C-alpha cells in the first residue's frame, strides 16, 4: 500500500468534465421563477474521466479488503464474496426495475423474494421473512417494532421493557431505544453466559422480550437457552435473535427450534454479500407463525429493501444448496477453535472450552511491561498485525474484558492462511515480550501511522472547505 495524498477537489480545473449528454432536441422549458433558483452553483470538482479513474484507483490502493487478505474481524463474518454474485446483481432485467412497477412486470424479482424467503425460513425455522430492513441494526429495529406490535395487537400496552445482556452488540440497546423501549441489562456469569438467576427477577408483565445473540459475542453457545426461552415466554415475553452470529449455526441449529420468535439475518455477513466499506447490507427479519400478522403494517424503508443485496445472497445460497450448508457452520467453528487452541499459550483465554465461530482473548499473557516500561495493549497487537498484512480482529469489544481481542476467521480460509496468522500472532507475542515498543509504535509499514484522533474530534474538519 502506498500513501497517496490527493482529494478529488484538488484535481479540479475550471471547465473540465468527465460527463457527456445527448444533444438536446427539445424546446427549452420555461425558466424557474427567480425566487426558486439556486443563487450560487455547488462547488463540485471539475475533472476528466481519466482524472477520476486514476484518483479512485489510487485511493483503492490504500484500502484492505477480504480480497486483499485475511480479515478476522469478530462479529463481522468477513467471508469470501463469490464473484458470480456481482454479475447476477448487475443483470439488466433486475437492475432496471422501477420499485413501483406492479407485480406483473417484476415476476422474476418477486420469485427471488419468495424463494429466498422460503430458503431462509428453512435455515432458521422461522415462518416468514420481511426483506425491507437495509442492515442488521435496521433489522433489529424492525424486529422490535414487530415485538411491540404483537403485544399492542393483544391489547397489552404495559410491556415497555426489553432485556439485553451486557455482552450484546451496541446496536441492540440502541435499537431498543429507537423503538421506544426501556433497556434492562442482564449480567453475564464468569463463564460468559447469561446469568439465569439474575434474569429471573427481571421478568414480569412489563417485559416485551429479550434480545439475544446465540452464540453470544464471546462466541459461546448459551447452553441454558431452553430454560431462558421458557422463563421469558412464561411471563408473556418474546425472544429476539440477533443474527449477527448466525454463521456457526448454518446447517446445524435453527433459532426457531431454540424458541426464538423474531430474528434478523445479516446477509452481508452470513450470506456472503460484500460489506462495501460499511454497507449496503441487508437485514431481513424472520418471525414465528403467531407474528406473521404483524409484518404488513410496518414500513421501515422506502420500497422493498436492498434488492441488489438479496440477489447476491440468493445466488450464494443456491450454490451452497442443502448439501453444503452444514460445512459453513462446521468449518467456521473449526477455524475459530483451531486458532484459539493454537494461540492460548501466549494470549489470555478468559473462558476455556469449545467456542463457536469466534472467540475473545483478553490481551497478551506477557505484554512485555516491566519496571516502568508500559506493556503492549490489544490496540498495539492490532496495529502490529497490519504490518504483517492481516486485518486486525475486533478490539475492545465485548466490554466484558478490558483487553478484548475478538477473532472470527470464517469458513472460507484455508489451513495455510490460518497457520500463517497463528505464526504472526506468536511472533507478535514474542516481540511484545522482548520489546513492547515495537508494538506500541506499530504500524510501521502502512500508508499512514496512528493518526491523531483526539485532534480530529476536538477540531472537526468534516469537509474539504473546513480545512
Amino acid at each position, binding site marked *: 500500500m502506498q500513501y497517496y495524498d490527493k482529494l478529488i477537489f484538488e484535481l479540479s480545473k475550471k471547465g473540465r468534465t468527465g460527463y457527456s449528454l445527448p444533444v438536446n432536441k427539445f424546446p427549452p422549458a420555461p425558466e424557474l421563477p427567480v425566487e426558486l433558483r439556486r443563487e450560487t452553483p455547488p462547488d463540485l470538482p471539475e475533472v476528466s474521466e481519466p482524472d477520476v479513474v486514476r484518483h479512485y*484507483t489510487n485511493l*483503492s490502493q490504500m484500502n*484492505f479488503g477480504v480480497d486483499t487478505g485475511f480479515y478476522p474481524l469478530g462479529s463481522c463474518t468477513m467471508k469470501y464474496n463469490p464473484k458470480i454474485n456481482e454479475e447476477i446483481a448487475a443483470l439488466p432485467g433486475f437492475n432496471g426495475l422501477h420499485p413501483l412497477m406492479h407485480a406483473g412486470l417484476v415476476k422474476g424479482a418477486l420469485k427471488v423474494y419468495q424463494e429466498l424467503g422460503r430458503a431462509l425460513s428453512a435455515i432458521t425455522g422461522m415462518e416468514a421473512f420481511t426483506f425491507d430492513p437495509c442492515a442488521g441494526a435496521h433489522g433489529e429495529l424492525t424486529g422490535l417494532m414487530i415485538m411491540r406490535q404483537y403485544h399492542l395487537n393483544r391489547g397489552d400496552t404495559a410491556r415497555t421493557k426489553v432485556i439485553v445482556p451486557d455482552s450484546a452488540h451496541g446496536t441492540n440497546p440502541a435499537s431498543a431505544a429507537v423503538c421506544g423501549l426501556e433497556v434492562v441489562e442482564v449480567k453475564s456469569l464468569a463463564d460468559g453466559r447469561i446469568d439465569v438467576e439474575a434474569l429471573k427477577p427481571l421478568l414480569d408483565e412489563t417485559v416485551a422480550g429479550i434480545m439475544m445473540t446465540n452464540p453470544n459475542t464471546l462466541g459461546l453457545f448459551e447452553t441454558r437457552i431452553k430454560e431462558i426461552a421458557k422463563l421469558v415466554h412464561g411471563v408473556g415475553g418474546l425472544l429476539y435473535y440477533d443474527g449477527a452470529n448466525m454463521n456457526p449455526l448454518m446447517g446445524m441449529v435453527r433459532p426457531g427450534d431454540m424458541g426464538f420468535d423474531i430474528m434478523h439475518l445479516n446477509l452481508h455477513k452470513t450470506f456472503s454479500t460484500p460489506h462495501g466499506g460499511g454497507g449496503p447490507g441487508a437485514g431481513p427479519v424472520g418471525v414465528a407463525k403467531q407474528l406473521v400478522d404483524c409484518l404488513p403494517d410496518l414500513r421501515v424503508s422506502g420500497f422493498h429493501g436492498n434488492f441488489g443485496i438479496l440477489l447476491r445472497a440468493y445466488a450464494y445460497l443456491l450454490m451452497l444448496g442443502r448439501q453444503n450448508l452444514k460445512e459453513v457452520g462446521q468449518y467456521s467453528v473449526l477455524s475459530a477453535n483451531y486458532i484459539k487452541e493454537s494461540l492460548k499459550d501466549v494470549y489470555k483465554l478468559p473462558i476455556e472450552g469449545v467456542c463457536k465461530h469466534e472467540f475473545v482473548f483478553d490481551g497478551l499473557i506477557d505484554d512485555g511491561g516491566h519496571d516502568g516500561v508500559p506493556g503492549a495493549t490489544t490496540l498495539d497487537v492490532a496495529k502490529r498485525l497490519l504490518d504483517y498484512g492481516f486485518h486486525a480482529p475486533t478490539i475492545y469489544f465485548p466490554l466484558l474484558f478490558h483487553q478484548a481481542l475478538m477473532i472470527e476467521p470464517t469458513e472460507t480460509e484455508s489451513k495455510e492462511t490460518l497457520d500463517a496468522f497463528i505464526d504472526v500472532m506468536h511472533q507478535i507475542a514474542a516481540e511484545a515480550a522482548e520489546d513492547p515498543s515495537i508494538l506500541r509504535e506499530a504500524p510501521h509499514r502502512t500508508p499512514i501511522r496512528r493518526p491523531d484522533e483526539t485532534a480530529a474530534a476536538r477540531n472537526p474538519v468534516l469537509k474539504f472547505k473546513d480545512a
Partner: protein
Amino acid sequence: MLVRIGVKKLDDLYSDVPKEFLHKGAYALPDALSEQEVRTYFEALDRLNARMKVFVGAGAYDHYTPAVIPYITQRSEFLTAYTPYQCEISQGTLRYIFEYQSMICELTGMDVSNASLYDGPTAAAEAMKMAVACAKKRTRVLLSRSLLPHILKVVETYAKFHGVELGYIPAPEGQTSLDGLQAGLATGDVAGVIVPEINRYGIVEDHSGFADAVHAAKALLIEYCDPSALAVIKSPSEWGADIAVGDAQSLGLPLCYGGPYIGFMAVKKEYMRKMPGRIVGQTVDQEGRRAFVLTLQAREQHIKREKATSNICSNESLMALWVTIYLSLTGPEGLREVNRLSSDGAHYLYAELLKTGRFEEVFPGKPFLKEFVLKPKEFPGFMQQRLEKAGLFAALDTEEGYVSFCVTEKRTKEEIDQLVHIVKEG
C-alpha cells in the same frame, strides 16, 4: 486441526449445544448448483422481468450511470472492505467518505454531512428523531402532506414506535401551505417540520417565510430534497433549513427495484453532535501526513449504546462512493445539464400530453423540473395497459386520482413521441 483442538470429529465442536437443538435430517433447500447453473437460473429469472422505458419517478429516478462508476465501485479494495475501523489500512474508504460529505455539503449548503443513511425515507425519520432530541420537551413533528407517500409511511412507522406525535401541514394548491404551517406551529409543542423542496406532484415548492415561522416557534426546519435538482433549485441552506435530508439515488444509482439506495443527511454545525451515523474527519498522522478517521464517535451505538443518537451501524458506504464518482464526473455544469435535459423533455411531454385532450392540468402554472402530474379525463387503465404493452412504464396512478410522469435525460424525443402517440390513439 481436530487434533490440536482435542476433539475427534467435527460434530464434537457442537458438544455444548443441547442435543435436541441439533438439526436432524435434511434442510428443505434446493440442491447445490454449479456457478454455470446459477448463472443460467438467474438469467431465466431476469427474463421474467419486463424491460421498460421508465417514465415514472415518485422517489426513484432513472438517471444515466456512467461506465466509470460500476468499474471503480467493483474494485475489491472498496467492495470487500468493511467499516474503516483500522484507519491505517482504510484511507481509501475514509477519503471517499470525506469527499462525499464535502459534496453533500456543497449541494445542500449545509455545514456537516454524515457518511450516509439507508435511504431517503429513513433519513427523514432520523431527522424527525433528531429534531425531537434537540428540542427535549417539545415532541411533535409536522409533515407536509405534499411529501411523497413512501416518505410519510416510513416516518409514520418510526414515529409510532419512537413516541413522536405527528401533525400534518396541508398542501391544497400543490404546495405546502404557509398558513397551514403557521397553524400547525401555533400549538407550541413542535420540535421539527419536514417539507419537500420538490413534492409528490413534481412541483418545486416556494418555502419563502417557512424558516422564519419555524424558527420563531423554536423548531427545526427539515428540507427533504432531490440532490440532483439542487444543482439548479434553491439549496436547503438558502431556504434557511437546519437539516437537509433526501435520497441520493438520483445521482446515478440504478433503479434496482428500490435498493440499495442512499439516504443523506446534512446539518448546521450546531446540530453536529446530535447527528446520526458515521462521520469522517481530517487529521494528521504521527508523521504529520494528512489522514482521515472516523470521528465524533461518542454519538454512536458502539460507544453510547441505548443513549446513542441512532442505532445505525452499517450504512450505504459503497453507494456513497457511487455518488462521489458520479458528482466528480458531472461536475457542477454536467449536473446542471442533466437537469436542463430532463426538464426540457418533461415540459415537452407535458405540453404534448395536454394537446391530446385526454388530460386536464391539475396545478396550472406551478413550476416543475422532471416530474409532473395530470388528471386523466377518463379511466386511465386502458391507456396504462397500452403503454405497458409498448414497453413504456408511465402514467403511474397517484392517491389523488392523478397520473404521474417523469422524464430524465435518458428518455429520447422519439420515446416521448411514441408515448404521446399511444395516448393520442386512445
